[in-house]
């Protein structure tokens, strides 16, 4: 009798739990059935009046009924919570195709990019990076580099002179002099920087451009060593194997002096418009440091010698990014600069 009543309560309550349409309705069922004066509680109270053997049986049934209903209630509650969360999250729909607010990352100047790449490359080979001023003395820019006043090589570089007799450095080579004066031998250094030549500006000429000067002073440095370094560096710069060749070139601060050509990377040496059909592209001047230059910087050329080279940084940047107008580099136009 009791048993049957419990079963009826359970199945009735289960129906109400499953069909509840809100948390409130569910709560009403809980209070009515499982609450402190609820229907189940009434059964528990009646249970005391039963004989012992029936009592334990009824207790089991009541407990299992209680657990089943509690479980169902909890599950139903969770279902409501899940549904509520789902609804809430659905309302939080975002149009992720909208643009993100705030400024974008800016852009490094292309010369900065390549210059840094080279600085890192040289540093990995044990070269230190040195700086010198834009305004230099005539001595460091010319005389100390074996280019005395009456030397025709001074005509090779149209110079900007400043009132008072100083000049705007025409090459980064004076930093060699500074490096030798400051650090002495042995020395491995590069000097990337801004240089100036007094010439009219057009798509391929600038009065302001960038060079990267390099120098190594040690004992018994040879043409073979120069070739090794140049080949190693250029292979790293161009990220592929390059074939280099030296031919005579005249620069007063080196002896012997060379023009270094690389086999054209476009046509592989067969001849194309880039190499003007010659198969080779003139890339950089270099040579063994003239003993006079060493001597003028206080280094004994009988004990030390070395090589030096000058890389046209601006030219390299133009080659790398196929920039056809040199004026863009100092034009400050963000439409150009944002591409890098």
């Amino acid at each position: 009798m009791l048993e049957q009543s419990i079963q009826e309560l359970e199945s009735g309550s289960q129906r109400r739990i499953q069909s509840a349409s809100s948390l409130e309705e569910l709560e009403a069922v809980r209070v009515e059935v499982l609450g402190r004066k609820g229907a189940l509680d009434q059964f528990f109270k009646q249970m005391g009046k039963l004989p012992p053997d029936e009592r334990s049986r009824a207790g089991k049934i009541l407990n299992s009924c209680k657990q089943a209903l509690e479980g169902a209630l909890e599950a139903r509650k969770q279902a409501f919570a899940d549904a509520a969360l789902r609804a809430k999250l659905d309302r939080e729909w975002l149009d992720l195709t909208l643009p993100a607010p705030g400024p974008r990352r800016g852009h490094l100047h292309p010369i900065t990019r390549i210059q840094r790449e080279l600085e890192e490359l040289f540093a990995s080979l044990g070269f230190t990076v040195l700086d010198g001023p834009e305004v230099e003395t005539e001595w460091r820019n010319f005389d100390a580099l074996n280019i005395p006043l009456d030397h025709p090589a001074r005509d090779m570089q149209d110079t900007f002179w400043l009132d008072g007799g100083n000049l705007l450095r025409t090459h980064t080579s004076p930093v060699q002099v500074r490096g030798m004066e400051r650090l002495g031998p042995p020395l491995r250094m590069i000097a990337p920087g801004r240089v100036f030549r007094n010439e009219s500006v057009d798509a391929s000429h600038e009065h302001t451009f960038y060079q990267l000067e390099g120098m190594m002073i040690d004992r018994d440095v040879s043409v073979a060593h120069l070739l090794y370094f140049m080949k190693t560096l250029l292979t790293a710069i161009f990220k592929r194997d390059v074939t280099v060749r030296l031919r005579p070139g005249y620069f007063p601060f080196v002896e012997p002096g060379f023009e270094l050509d690389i086999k054209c990377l476009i046509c592989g040496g067969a001849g194309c418009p880039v190499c003007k059909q010659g198969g080779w592209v003139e890339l950089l001047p270099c040579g063994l440091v003239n003993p006079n230059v060493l001597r003028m910087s206080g280094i004994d050329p009988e004990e030390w010698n070395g090589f030096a080279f000058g890389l046209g940084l601006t030219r390299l940047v133009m080659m790398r990014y196929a920039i056809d107008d040199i004026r863009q580099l100092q034009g400050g136009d963000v439409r150009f600069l944002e591409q890098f």
Partner: protein
Amino acid sequence: MKFSYNWIRELVEGLDAAPGPLEKLITMKTAECEGIERAGDLLERACAARVDTVEPLPGGHNVVAVVDAGRYGRKTVVCGAPNCRPGLITAYVPVGKKVVGGVESDGMLASGAELGINRDHSGVIELDSQVGAPLPGCVPDSVIEIDNKSITHRPDLWGHYGMAREVAAISGRRLKDPVDMSLLPQGPGAIKVEVEDFALCPRYSALVIENIEVRPSPLWLQARLTAIGLNPINNIVDMTNYIMAEISQPMHAFDAALLRGDTIFVRRAKPGEQFHALNEEHYELGPTNVVIADAGGPVALGGVIGGMESAISDGTTKIVLESANFQASSIRMTSSGIKLRTDASMRFEKAQDPANTVRGLARAIELLREISPGMRIVGGVADAAKAIPAPAPIPLPLDWLERKLGRAMAPAEVRRILESLEFEVKDAGRHTFSVTPPSWRATKDVSIKDDLVEEVGRMIGYDSIDPKAPLIPSVVPPGNPERKFQHELRDLFVDLGFTEVYNYSFTSEEAVRAFGLDAGAHMRVANPIASDQELMRASLLPGLWKNVAENAKHRESFRIFEIGYEIHKRSAELPDEIPHAVAAIYDRNGDGAAGLFEIKRVVECLLPGAEVCPAEARPFEHPARSADILWRGETAGRMFELHPRLVESGRAAILDLDLRTVRRLSVADFKYAPIRRYPSSAFDLSVITGLREQAGKLEASLASFAGPLLESVQFVRQYSGPPLEEGRKSVSFRLTVGSPERTLSSEEVGDIRARIIEGMRGLGYDLRV
């Protein structure tokens, strides 16, 4: 410098390399070739032809001429030359048929310019040859152009003979000397020469020649000069130019009848001395210039240009032929001083060989015999020269040579190479040669053993040297903290959305004035390329301003920055170059406040803890929006809005940091502070004050009253409007207090709060508590 292939071939016995391959060899072993041009291509097929009849062609200046063109037969050609007349012997070239003015013209009659013989295109060339004969001594040529820069150190390569010597050495052939010294007359010169200073003019040789006939040069001579870019003038002038182009010895011929007195003086010009040059210019000279003078005054500017008054003319019959040597630096100074570079000065400034002067005279005698057949030499060579020391021998240790080149060298090979270039090589002990350079290499070019490395290296071929890694100790290179710092800064700017610009180091007076700066305080370029680039920038701001103006034409908003050097005058040897970073945030819309606060955020990212202290505006700054940036107790820069009068539309917020100061302050070392174990307490205070009261000042005052237990003061918000009275605002702060040793009691916190309130009220502030 242009070199005639035919000429070189005359001087190198059996040379069979074609111009193309020869050019490559010269490039690899001697000097850079810039290309090959053909010269006188029409000469291949040209022949002398007689004009038989001439009929006018209606409607123009052209005529129809029938010519007897020898092996080509009788031809009808249309010709526009005014000198085309019956009986004329001229040059016919079979260039094919075309119809001109309705008449079929078969071939052409050619001018000297068209043939490449001279620059005369006023009419067809006039010849006195046999009909059908080729033009005597005139053949097509290839002209190899050498980059002048690659031969500035080689006085000998400014003539064909010098280049021929290289070619002979490269190709292993014999060099032929065009000079026959036995032609020089003996005995005293027919003119006296007095050299004031042999340092300026180490040698002056002269020869007097009479019974000269001035007339056009033979065609072969004209053609050769034309091919290498020289302009044929008359036989005497052409002869001097020919010798210059051949053996690199500039020469000059005076009309002897026009020289006053019997002596040539080589002396410094007197101050203000006037000189009328062959180029019709008048020059005022001074003691740095060397003049060639007669009794009446300067007749030539030594080593640069001849004088008008003593110039050769058609009536000249007697000449004084000058073949001299001048000091290179003096010529360079004179030539750059009067801004006149001539073929002569270009050669002399490379330090020519004094031994070459008399060779020039000998070569002149030989040429004059052909081009002015009746000429007579008067007297011997006048030759004023200082004793020229023989070139010093250079010891060349062969193992040293090998170490320099980085390859093995057979002594016999070294000897062969040096001797092929006419160096004298003697054994000087074990593995050492004693090498004496020839006179033409000894003036400046070759003096130390390193110079010999080049001679051997280039001739053996640098491609014979294999790259080799040096054995050197591996060391960490010294760092460059300044550069590293700048690179880090660049990255920060880029991360914050700024794009890097590079501006010129130059600025203009106009820009400087627009910024209210003092142009006189700037370094000035003595030879600016343009008037807007005549000052060195003492601020990066005018450049940035220009970037803002330009980019504002295309963009509504952008962020840019630059790292560069301000250049400031000072009394030291060099100006002070101070690294600066400048940045701009431009927005076409808005009132500019957002940009300025964004700049402030950048400052706080770059310089943590920096204070922004409003300061009096400079002329280019918004008068109510400018501030100094204080960092660690020092002024490290400035932020402001660009004065709206400098910006056409929109607003530009600007940052300018002195990186020298910033970097100096940023190297401070620090140690960590332990995280506090006891909780802090916070309370809010609102200060009621005037609208222009600075929150920063309030914050500082609050902090000053809070005492040592204060952890932080944070701005929360500010408000103006009802219920506050007009002109008043309420600024709220959150103050946090605490102790590293204990938890503060509520009484302690209350005391601090009360102290602050009392202090602020003491300063006259109203507090809402």
